[in-house]
């Protein structure tokens, strides 16, 4: 097979070489950010001009980013003051859920003053789209999404929250203690 090889010689002239100032202008801007930040950190260290906030890097797993209380994180079920579940198994959250991730089996409550309570309350986290409709639909404030922890990953595909997990009573998986932590943060 015949090959054609063309040698191209490129001699950069003045017009091509004037990109050097552009490189240094970009470097000047990025370096200015660096030194301004360092200056602000130094001033803050001595307690001067603490209102000007320098750039902060969160030391993530140990020191998570502060979350706002409206952040839609993982679900949890709330309790009454006597420790009973608030949920009355009215099925509103199961009806509004666009992804069919909530499954409730209602049953008769042991307390004679309460009509119904959920015997099973499971949320399939891998189906959940975190829209927050269940929180909005609940008439008795039984379900909340204020755990402020959003790292939900696992090695299996059965990340299913049961009633005990949602109430924070069982800690079987590594991601369980978030519920208890979330409740503590809320109380404190």
């Amino acid at each position, binding site marked *: 097979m*015949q090959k054609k090889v063309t040698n191209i010689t490129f001699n950069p002239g003045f017009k091509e070489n004037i*990109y050097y100032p552009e490189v240094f202008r970009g470097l000047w801007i990025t370096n200015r950010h660096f030194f301004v930040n360092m200056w602000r950190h130094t001033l803050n260290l001595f307690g001067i001009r603490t209102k000007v906030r320098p750039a902060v890097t969160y030391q993530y797993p140990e020191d998570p980013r502060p979350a706002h209380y*409206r*952040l839609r994180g993982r679900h949890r079920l709330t309790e009454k003051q006597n420790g009973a579940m608030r949920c009355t198994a009215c099925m509103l959250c199961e009806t509004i859920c*666009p992804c069919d991730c909530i499954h409730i089996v209602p049953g008769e409550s042991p307390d004679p003053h309460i009509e119904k309570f959920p015997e099973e309350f499971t949320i399939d986290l891998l189906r959940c789209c975190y*829209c927050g*409709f269940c929180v909005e639909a609940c008439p008795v404030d039984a379900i909340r999404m204020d755990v402020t922890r959003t790292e939900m990953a696992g090695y299996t595909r059965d990340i299913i929250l049961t009633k005990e997990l949602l109430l924070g009573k069982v800690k079987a998986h590594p991601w369980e203690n978030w519920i208890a932590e979330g409740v503590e943060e809320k109380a404190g």
Partner: protein
Amino acid sequence: MSEKRELNLPLGPTPEKMQAAYAAADQMPGEFMHVQMGPQHPATHGVLRVEIETDGEMILKGTPHIGYLHRCFEKVAENITWPQIVPFTDRLDYCSSMNNNLGWSLACEKLFGIEVSERVQTIRVLAAELNRIANHCVALGSYSLDIGAWTPFLLLFQEREHILDLFEELCGGRLLLNYIWIGGLSHDIPDGWLKKVRDFTEYMKPKVPELNQLLSYNKIFTERLANVAVIPADVCLQYGVTGPNLRGAGVKWDLRKSEPYSGYETYDFDIPVGTGEMGQVGDAFDRYMVRVHEIEQSLRIIEQAAGRLEKMPGDDVQAAIPRTFAKVPAGEIYFRTEQPKGELGFYIVSNGKSKPQRVKCRAPSFSNLCVLSKVAPGLLIADMVALIGSIDIVLGDVDR
């Protein structure tokens, strides 16, 4: 050796240099090479596969293959109730969820005859324009990353982070927001939020000139983008290209001005168009620069909206939400809004029941991507990346 193939000269724009190169390639015996660009290519902004037929460095044919991210939005929408579709519109174009929510909600409100209060409209405009800035930060940042500049990407994502923090405080979501509902909003604005929006605009204003200094008018960047991948206005109109790509071609068309919705006619802002300041009108630099100017215009709208909200008395943002969607008026509607990427239209057929009978989503990125096969012939392989980045597609929007 393959036989010499007939070269189809592209109908689109081709500089004389490229035509000379075509003529030279005609004389040369050799094989054309097929290159699959994607779907894992980092510069295709997701899962886009472009099948390229090349002759040396030159592209003879570029065909986009889509469908890797298809999630059946239109079919899913037929099986769930009207308000439940709102979180699914978040996932169409996940960089601009608020504008998708706005498009769906306005379409349904017009179909059902719901009137929302002026305050709700103003909050919607404010939130949508914040998301427009966030979307353009992603577009410009990832474009600079495609071209080879790393620092502007980090700077722009830092700006975007402020907007996401504002959204987190507003509605609880950062990327997928589910904020604008049919007939209202999910939450009222929290206390002190407008002050933070004011702080953000004050912070963002000097960032745009800094971006221009760092990237936009950098000689390396302008030389790279000028006269590359020119999409002239008539091709844009043939293919239904909308948004900043159309405005980059010099056509002054913005649905916020030409078909105002949600009270956009009362705001004072300009429509930036491409002027060809570095090369031809409609080249990659013009499309880039239109987005930079749109950030400035969005900041103007945000300031006006924040100023109005500060004077308005508070009201219930969920007042106009119907108690039930079990019975809705029957009929059909096509409603379009200006999303950051272009014209987002929803065609809805309602038969009066709790679920829509048919939903058609006219996604801006899909129509914008269609022009790729027209523009690609005659480009160099390296310019393909510049083309894909400059039309700013999100594959969630292309495939739906």
